[in-house]
């Protein structure tokens, strides 16, 4: 990625990862970027250091070299310890000088030490601490658990540029660099990112956004560590985050299932017909065809969740349990739920799905439907009725 001056003396120097499709188990069909930023003032500061892959860390150094001799970097700032942003640290520090100060949060100091076992010249900053680079002042804002204990934001005060680490990011590698270049299609990627990485911390994010607004920072540009930079309308992504944090459901229903001999699938389709009859926005997702990370994105603003599984060896089908395990950790809220499934002789799947619904605090509004072997026309009518019942409840709420 050719470096671009995004504000006077502030350069985007990160790298694109066009072809990554599996980001720690999150399907990234648009690739991603590992952003890093160079601030050239009387002192030179580098913010974040891209992913721990040789080609990327070298590219980072090469990018910086087109602007300034990398050895002239005085300060490195690590906003987040995760390897896709700190992985380049050993290479960078070795290149520019191991004794250069490394700014991070208190937890960042602990966590970086546990990642790299190096005695770097750590400067653990306090929340709100300022650092003058000459004409520019940086302010460090602690953002613990958004989304790691070490996470922090760095704000370039005079320029109004917020370096927001993983906050407001998107897994998107494109030719575009800014929101105004990419247009509205980026909002899906931003939502997808929020659902998969940040959703479980929604109450904390809400507080943080309020805190930042209350501080009265004049934010002109938001630079996340993944994807495009928000410069045309930073308020748009902040407002979107506020809405996603609330998880206010739309008139939507999601049917998630797996099937062995198409019986549970037939039930799923009948349920979908019932939902559509009630004019609910409905989506059917087969868990071995749709990635769990896309299921959670759909779930973010869905009211009704209906899950189906055949019973295999007295258990729920493992692929559905995979998706449920993933969803559970991300803590979706405001859901009504029901289960269904076909079985041969024992038929425990519905019971186990309901147990998971309870664990996730979903409101179970129907005990669910179990069908032995292949659904009869009457069974399918019952499934249609279940869909219609869920649809009505969606419309009432």
């Amino acid at each position, binding site marked *: 990625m050719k470096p671009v001056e995004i504000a006077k003396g502030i350069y985007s120097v990160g790298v694109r990862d066009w072809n990554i499709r599996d980001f720690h188990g999150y399907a990234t069909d648009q690739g991603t970027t590992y952003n890093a930023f160079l601030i050239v003032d009387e002192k030179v500061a580098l913010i974040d250091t891209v992913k721990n892959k040789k080609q990327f860390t070298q590219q980072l150094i090469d990018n910086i070299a087109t602007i300034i001799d990398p050895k002239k970097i005085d300060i490195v700032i690590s906003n987040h310890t995760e390897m896709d942003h700190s992985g380049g640290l050993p290479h960078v520090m070795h290149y520019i000088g191991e004794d250069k100060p490394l700014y991070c*949060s*208190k*937890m960042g100091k602990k966590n970086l030490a546990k990642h790299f076992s190096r005695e770097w010249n750590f400067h653990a900053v306090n929340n709100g601490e300022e650092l003058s680079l000459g004409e520019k002042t940086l302010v460090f804002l*602690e953002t*613990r*658990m958004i989304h790691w*204990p*070490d996470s922090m934001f760095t704000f370039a005060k005079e320029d109004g540029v917020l370096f927001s680490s993983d906050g407001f990011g998107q897994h998107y590698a494109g030719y575009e660099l800014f929101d105004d270049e990419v247009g509205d299609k980026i909002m899906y990627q931003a939502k997808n990112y929020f659902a998969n990485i940040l959703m479980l*911390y929604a109450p*904390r994010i809400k507080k943080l956004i309020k805190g930042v607004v209350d501080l009265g920072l004049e934010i002109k540009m938001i630079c996340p560590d993944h994807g495009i930079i928000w410069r045309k309308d930073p308020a748009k992504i902040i407002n979107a985050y506020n809405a996603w944090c609330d998880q206010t459901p739309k008139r939507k229903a999601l049917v998630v299932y797996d099937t062995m001999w198409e019986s549970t699938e037939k039930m799923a389709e009948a349920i979908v017909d019932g939902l559509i009859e009630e004019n609910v926005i409905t989506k059917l997702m087969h868990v071995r065809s749709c990635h769990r990370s896309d299921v959670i994105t759909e779930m973010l603003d869905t009211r009704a969740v209906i899950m189906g599984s055949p019973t295999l060896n007295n258990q729920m089908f493992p692929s559905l349990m995979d998706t449920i395990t993933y969803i559970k950790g991300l803590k979706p809220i405001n859901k009504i739920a029901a289960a269904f499934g076909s079985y041969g002789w024992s038929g425990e799947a519905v019971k186990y799905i309901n147990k998971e619904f309870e664990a996730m605090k979903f409101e179970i509004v129907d005990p669910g439907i179990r069908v032995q072997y292949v659904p009869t026309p009457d069974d399918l009518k019952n499934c249609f009725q279940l869909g219609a019942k869920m649809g009505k409840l969606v419309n009432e709420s």
Partner: protein
Amino acid sequence: MDKYVCTLCGYVYDPEVGDPDEGIEPGTKFEDIPDDWYCPVCGAGKEDFEIQE
């Protein structure tokens, strides 16, 4: 003595164990921990803890 759980990361403060690394002796009630103490796992403040049910 009540155990307290960090609502951010799930760490449980057990008064019988304390947090000796931070100078909190075993047997210290959660209420008696200084206000500037923070979660040893994620760095959350005391205000982010709840009584474990």
